Structure formats: structure tokens, C-alpha cells
């Protein structure tokens, strides 16, 4: 291993779901203690902490966890970056270790979202008794629902529909079939918030949220946390052979934002920044998409999964519909995608998601994924999108 390589030494994910008796600090602590134990290290070994949480971003979750697990005085970076919050926390640890400021770093992400409902679209408040222009559009009344939609299921519905307009082949049923795949995958994942198989008829017949996304085609709000310990290649060489054997190489760690495109301030462009992140990640890792054994991508809605097949270059440009219809992305296909069940069934505790998907990939590379193991997996990719936008891509490789 090269001295300046980055490795995951330990990693852990809590069960996703309802945790009414545990607060944010409990959930984060469980993930952090799990990751430290997995890596055979302690808080005293951590030189930096990246702490991710979105809904309570002002609370300083990093220091709150230190106050339970170890106030070692090392720098904490509390980060919030929409649904890319966890990946951003991981990037903090990666950057600090890569730069040589620390030889080991901790990253964690945590969220409590059970029962949260719609997470955007709240700009429509009490209307004033007289019309008074305000804000950047000089609006005299709230515009959500009057000038398009702010709700996430509706925004991502349009993103999938736009792909269909551009390349053809999409339909309500096609998007529902993507959801059917992920719900089917989830039945093998004991840590998923929902692990119930759903038929196409059940999915299409469920409550419509924003056409073509019905409720089971939307990410599941839930509670959960995930944490990872990042170590430099130089430091890893000094650790035990068992620690070296179970370490997983971070072959690429990338975060991008959305570059300006003509329509990007009308409908968020989640495509360009994902493609940019993927290009950078494949270059860093020195591999191509065909080398991947599994992919965890950001299926916040069934309509989103489709476009990311294309954005991550898992298929030819414009070929995502044919690629899905070929069966490639089922767990027994040529490019298994979201074998965890994805955000639609595993769940989407926002701050945790960008580390939980790395945990899923790492667990397969270690051969420790149990019933859902992708046999012989050596390389995998984890992707998240935070609307606004931020995109995190990590490529992991099994230790040689």
C-alpha cells in the first residue's frame, strides 16, 4: 500500500428505522463506537472529526458526541450539505488525512426523521393582508404550488420525466419497476427500515405523491447513523495484519457542486455534477465503470435512480431505460445497483446516508454482507446527491 493512500479502517451503520428511545447523540455514538471497535482503535487515535447532521445543523453534533465518547481536543468540523451531508463529513476526514494533518480521522453522519413527512415546500406561510412584494422574485404571495413545485418528490419526478423527454422510453410503469427492484433487494437487508417485497401492482396502486412517484417510490424517512474511521496508508502499515486485511481502500473521494447550465435554476440539474464527480472519481481510481462489481446510488426517488445510471456512466448516454430493462441492475445482473434496498426501502436518514452507502459497499468488499453478499466483489461505488446541489462519489477497493 502506498503511504499516501486512504483506507477505511473501521466502519459501522446502525439499523435504520424508528428509534424513538434514542436521541441523535445515542444514534451517533452507537455508529462511532461501532466504527472504532471495527477498526480496533479509540477516540484517542482520531486526529480530526467530520460530523454530519442536517435537521439540527446548528447544534454542534460533533462536540455533543465528543462529550459522551471522548473530549480529546481535536478539531471538529460540523457539516451540513443537504443529502450529501454524510459524504461531506467523510470528505473532511479524507482531506485531513490526505493532507497529512492527521493520520487517522473519524467521520459520522446522523439523522432522526421518522414521521417527518414532506421535507420541502414549506414556503407557503400566512398571507399578508395587503400584497407586498418580497424576496428575490418580488413575490406578493408564496409561490410553491403556484409557480411549479418545491416538494422533493415533485422536483425529482420532473428530473426523471425530463430524461424521458430527451431520450424516450420512460413510463409510470418503468419507474415503478425500478422501485420494485429496490424493495425486492431490501428483503435481504436486516438493517433496512423497510424490508418488505412489493409487487408492481402494489407500488403503482399506492398513494400518489407526485406523478409518477407513488409513496413506495419515495425515499423512506427514518432514523439512523453511520460512521467511518479513515487512516493513511503509512499509518495502516504500522497496524496489525488483521487490521490491514479488513481495511478497504478509498480509491477515490470526490465532492462536486452543480456548474451553471441553462435550466439549472429552473429545475435543479443533478446530472452534470454527478457526471463530473464520476469522471473525477474514475480518473482518481484508475478504473472505468465496467470494473465496478456493485453500486449504491442516490435513489431518493425511483425517477432519480434512472438518470444516475447514465450520469455514473453505467450505461451508454441516453441508454438508461434499455440498461434497466436488460435486468443489469438487479442483484443477479451485470451491474447490481442498490442491493441494500436503496433509499426507497433501506431508508434515508439524511445525514447518515452518505456514509451508510459506503458501509454497504465496504461490507460487500470484505465479504461480510451475509445473505445479500455480491460474491467476489472487489470494487464498488457509492454516490449521493444533496439538492442545491452537492454530489459525493466514493470508489472503494478490496485490500489486495
Amino acid at each position, binding site marked *: 500500500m502506498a503511504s499516501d493512500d486512504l483506507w477505511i479502517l473501521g466502519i459501522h451503520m446502525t439499523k435504520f428505522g424508528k428509534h424513538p428511545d434514542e436521541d441523535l447523540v445515542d444514534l451517533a455514538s452507537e455508529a462511532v463506537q461501532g466504527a472504532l471497535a471495527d477498526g480496533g482503535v479509540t477516540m484517542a487515535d482520531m486526529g480530526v472529526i467530520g460530523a454530519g447532521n442536517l435537521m439540527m445543523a446548528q447544534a454542534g453534533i460533533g462536540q455533543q458526541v465528543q462529550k459522551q465518547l471522548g473530549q480529546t481536543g481535536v478539531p471538529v468540523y460540523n457539516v451540513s450539505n443537504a443529502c450529501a451531508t454524510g459524504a461531506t463529513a467523510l470528505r473532511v476526514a479524507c482531506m485531513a488525512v490526505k493532507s497529512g494533518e492527521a493520520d487517522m480521522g473519524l467521520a459520522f453522519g446522523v439523522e432522526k426523521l421518522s414521521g417527518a413527512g414532506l421535507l420541502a415546500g414549506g414556503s407557503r406561510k400566512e398571507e399578508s393582508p*395587503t400584497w407586498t412584494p418580497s424576496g428575490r422574485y418580488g413575490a406578493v404571495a408564496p409561490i410553491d404550488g403556484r409557480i411549479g*413545485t418545491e416538494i422533493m418528490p415533485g*422536483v425529482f419526478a*420532473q428530473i426523471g420525466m425530463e430524461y424521458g423527454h430527451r431520450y424516450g422510453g420512460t413510463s409510470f410503469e418503468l419507474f415503478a419497476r425500478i422501485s420494485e427492484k429496490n424493495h425486492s433487494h431490501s428483503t435481504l437487508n436486516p438493517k433496512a427500515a423497510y424490508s418488505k417485497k412489493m409487487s408492481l401492482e402494489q407500488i403503482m396502486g399506492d398513494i*400518489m*405523491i407526485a*406523478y409518477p412517484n407513488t409513496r413506495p417510490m419515495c425515499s423512506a424517512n427514518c432514523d439512523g447513523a453511520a460512521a467511518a474511521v479513515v487512516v493513511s496508508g503509512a499509518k495502516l502499515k504500522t497496524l496489525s495484519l488483521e487490521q490491514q486485511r479488513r481495511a478497504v481502500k478509498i480509491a477515490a473521494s470526490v465532492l462536486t457542486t452543480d456548474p451553471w447550465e441553462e435550466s439549472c435554476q429552473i429545475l435543479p440539474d443533478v446530472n452534470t455534477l454527478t457526471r463530473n464527480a464520476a469522471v473525477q472519481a474514475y480518473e482518481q481510481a484508475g478504473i472505468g465503470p465496467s470494473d465496478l462489481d456493485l453500486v449504491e446510488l442516490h435513489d431518493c426517488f425511483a425517477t432519480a435512480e434512472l438518470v444516475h445510471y447514465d450520469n455514473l456512466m453505467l450505461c451508454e448516454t441516453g441508454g438508461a431505460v434499455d440498461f434497466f430493462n436488460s435486468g443489469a441492475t438487479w442483484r443477479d445482473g451485470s451491474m447490481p445497483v442498490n442491493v441494500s434496498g436503496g433509499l426507497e426501502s433501506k431508508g434515508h436518514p439524511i445525514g447518515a446516508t452518505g456514509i451508510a452507502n459506503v458501509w454497504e459497499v465496504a461490507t460487500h468488499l470484505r465479504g461480510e454482507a451475509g445473505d445479500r453478499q455480491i460474491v467476489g466483489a472487489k470494487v464498488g461505488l457509492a454516490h449521493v446527491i444533496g439538492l442545491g446541489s452537492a454530489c459525493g462519489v466514493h470508489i472503494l477497493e478490496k485490500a489486495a
Partner: protein
Amino acid sequence: MAEQIPLVDYLVLGDEPHLVANQCTGCGARFFDRRNACASCGKTEFTKVGIDTTGEVRAFTIVSFAAPGVPVPYVAAMVDCGGTSVRGNLINVAPDPEHVSLGMKVRLATEVIGTDEQGTEAIGFGFEPVGG
């Protein structure tokens, strides 16, 4: 006739209602909001340009579940108006997949969204099918 005020400042009322954008004098990028600078090239000078009132639906969704106080269902869309993308609802059309389709031709239309205590009408906009 009651006094009128546009829902947003980029909607121009009158005999021929239309939308206006801030167009960057450097690169031509168009924006509907108040600008500090151009997100594409960073320049700070803009001119007002009128936007085509007809266009084509590039993406839509039919929202059935929304924040409290927002009537559903409604059709939210992105419309390509002569090369400029515009966000708006599709109106004067049944909000179901049988009546709304990708690529459909639409034109700008206005509607009264309410009247305040002074009797002033707020006028919003949407897009309606052409020749539907």
C-alpha cells in the same frame, strides 16, 4: 376595474402579458431573480429581455400531496420558451396523465390568485395547452 399587481416581478401585465428575464451582457445567461452577479460568468451587468410566450413542456409532475394550504392536484412543469427554460404550472388542463404530456405545446396564460384588503388583485401565470 380593480387594481392589479403581478405575483412576481418578472411577470409583466397589460394587453400582452409576458415574462422578463435579467440577461447577462457578458454571456447571455438569463435569470428570473434579483441578481448580485452572473452565475455563469461573474459579470454584473444585465439587461431586461422579454421571454417567448409559447413553448414546449420538457418536464412535468402532477403533485397530489403538498404542504398544508396548497391546493392539489396541480401540474408543475418546466417549459422551454424559445430556448429559455421557465418554471410554471400547467393550467386550464385536467391534471392527469391523459391530458398532460411531455412535448406538448403551451402558451402563457394569467389568472387571478386573490384579492387583498385594498381590493387589489394579484395576478399569477401558468401555461395552457395551445389549440387544446
